[in-house]
């Protein structure tokens, strides 16, 4: 499982115009590396949801992407307020998004469940007042 590439992106807080730029860049890279179409789609959706969470809730942060021959590992780390109840945050339909965020089409309460659904490995660590770190792995052959 040789590592092919490592990429790092700074994700800005509350910057909805630029939100998704990191995910779009990763999608282009995976296409260039000729990964399977379904795998690229799963990775894109999972990373975009995570990136949007960082923009909306996390005050921005760092997205680190490790691309291997047969999988991708994505770490999204923010220094935001943290998640008080991860189990609750994982429930479909639960959202703390404000009305202004909902007007943009976000806040369905599907972000974290969508990420978990697309990922083969999913770990979320959060500390109140310090931030949240989400680590996911997607296997190209699953």
């Amino acid at each position: 499982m040789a590592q092919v590439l490592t990429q790092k992106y700074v994700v800005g807080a509350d910057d909805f115009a630029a939100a998704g730029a990191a995910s779009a860049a990763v999608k282009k890279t995976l296409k260039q590396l000729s990964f399977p179409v379904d795998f690229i789609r799963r990775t894109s959706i999972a990373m975009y949801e995570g990136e949007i969470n960082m923009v909306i809730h996390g005050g921005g942060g760092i997205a680190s992407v490790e691309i291997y021959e047969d999988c991708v590992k994505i770490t999204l780390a923010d220094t935001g307020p943290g998640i008080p109840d991860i189990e609750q945050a994982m429930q479909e339909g639960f959202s703390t998004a404000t009305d202004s965020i909902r007007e943009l089409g976000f806040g369905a309460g599907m972000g974290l469940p969508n990420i978990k659904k697309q990922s083969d490995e999913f770990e979320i660590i959060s500390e109140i007042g310090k931030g949240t770190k989400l680590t996911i792995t997607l296997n190209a052959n699953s």
Partner: protein
Amino acid sequence: MTVSQLAENLELKKLSNGDENEINSCYIADLLSRVLGGCNSNDVWITVQTSLNMVAVAVMADISCVILPEGITAPVNVILKANDEGLPIYSSNKSAYELALMIGELL
């Protein structure tokens, strides 16, 4: 059926130039995470969302084209972004329901 064939049949107004994708089915929703979790690749997506995030979601989810119903149009910056990404966006005076019925007949 391809995007341009669909556009011709439904008499859609083209807002952005995009790739000539194949169309498999149709998905209607306006909550972006709902779309990311529920749509399939090569769907037509009917939505009233006209933000840059709509373009990003469509691209991430491999949507074939977006149709804005009820005469809705998109801002210029959104159209330019869609052109960059190769995402075809169309507008129609018909409702989402009318469009879905017609798409169902065609596919």
